[in-house]
């Protein structure tokens, strides 16, 4: 079965969602990511959605679920690269993506993760 690759970037994982995603692919990604967060002891996860032309409530729920799973496994999730048209549509659809942090691109997302890791280790 086709799967979305999960890349390791130091203590973080990067997932780039590039396809017009099938439901079953979304499901598989959720499972794979949870497994990898634990196996790699990842501190954070970056989900790059810059290629996603739309995000509907099913995909939005999946992104929220991934963030929740990662938080439960003590890794932080940042969704990066949301297109402006997608953001406008999500608001009208009524999806708040509560608890999901966002950044403009992968670099900014990394900065965010590094900064919050710093805070955590100082605590």
């Amino acid at each position, binding site marked *: 079965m086709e799967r979305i690759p999960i890349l390791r970037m130091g203590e973080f994982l990067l997932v780039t969602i590039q396809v017009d995603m099938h439901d079953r692919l979304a499901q598989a990604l959720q499972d794979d990511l949870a497994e990898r967060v634990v196996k790699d002891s990842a501190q954070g996860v970056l989900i790059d959605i810059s290629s996603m032309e739309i995000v*509907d409530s099913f995909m939005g729920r999946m992104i929220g679920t991934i963030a929740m799973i990662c938080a439960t496994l003590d890794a932080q999730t940042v969704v990066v690269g949301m297109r402006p048209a997608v953001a406008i549509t999500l608001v009208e659809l009524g999806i708040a993506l509560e608890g999901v942090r966002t950044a403009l691109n992968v670099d900014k997302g990394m900065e965010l993760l590094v900064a919050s890791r710093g805070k955590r280790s100082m605590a």
Partner: protein
Amino acid sequence: MTINNYEILPIKSPDDLVRVRQATRALAIQLGFSLVEQTKMVTAASELARNTMTFGGGGTLRLETLLDNGRKGLRLTFEDHGPGIPDIDLAMTDAYTSGNGLGLGLGGAKRLVNEFEISSRVGEGTRVSITRWK
């Protein structure tokens, strides 16, 4: 009003959902919709097609382009012969789901388009029609 260019697509599998989104996008571009308008229409189509597949047990999408006094529009009609919706007001309510969704598909789709019509009969099926004007 002139109605034309109609195409009917099946909605049975997740693959069909991908085709529904692609066909909607292609027609929206052809009608000269802006990127935001395209995105709203494709997202609404994705929500309704998923309902047809999940709750309606599969069905069809009819795509039509409209011309009304020089105004161009895109109309999508989703139809199934599934169980129907016993309480449409309840189904339209945000956060109501009889499955495990977010319950935002019907209400959200309505907010994303200019015209929204729904009719359903228990035991006979459901039809939802949405229109966005350029």
